[in-house]
């Protein structure tokens, strides 16, 4: 079973303790299942669930979509540039 590598930033990175993490992935993984796996593994992320956006291949993915192990998946906490 190949994993999906997920990049994390900001407060999510702080909670996870690393800037990327490999999640085990079955068939039919989606942005939603990736996010759920991550939160299950790091419960302190749960309060942030509604604030997290997911990007696949460096584009925001507003609706749920399938992700494959080759995709670049990133969890985007609320941005605060400027």
């Amino acid at each position, binding site marked *: 079973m190949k994993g999906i590598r997920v990049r994390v930033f900001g407060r999510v990175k702080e909670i996870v303790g690393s800037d990327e993490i490999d999640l085990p992935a079955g068939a039919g993984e989606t942005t939603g299942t990736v996010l759920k796996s991550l939160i299950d593994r790091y419960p302190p992320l749960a309060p942030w669930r509604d604030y997290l956006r997911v990007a696949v291949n460096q584009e925001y993915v507003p609706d749920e979509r399938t992700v494959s192990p080759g995709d670049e998946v990133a969890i985007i906490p609320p941005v*605060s540039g*400027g």
Partner: protein
Amino acid sequence: MLPILVDIVDGRIDTEKLVAGISDPSAGGTAVFIGTTRTPSGNREVEYLEYEAYRPMALKQMAAIAETARSRWPLVGVCAVHRVGRVGIGETSVVIAVSAVHRAAAFEACRFIIDAVKKDAPIWKKEVFADGHAWVGP
């Protein structure tokens, strides 16, 4: 029409140089936004800020935002540069500069770009205090 310049840099932003880069004999007005780090935050003194970016995606987002601006307004030059890493209080963290034949377009596009960058570019800042730090946001 000049090329769009977007960048994420680790050191000081040279605003003068960026403005010179979008100047052109056809431009009559340049609107510039300079974001600077400030203190206090609420009632806590901030010692410095630390910015982090998802660099390749942030660059793509900034380029897309600049392209959108150029499609909406008649612009001459567009430039958007964000700094990451440690930024001291009062230092420049972001510069948006837009030149246009007429000033209304320059102002509107400049405002649009900084608003969109703050809303969508994957960049984060944390405020560092004497006794801890806080990520800015909800």
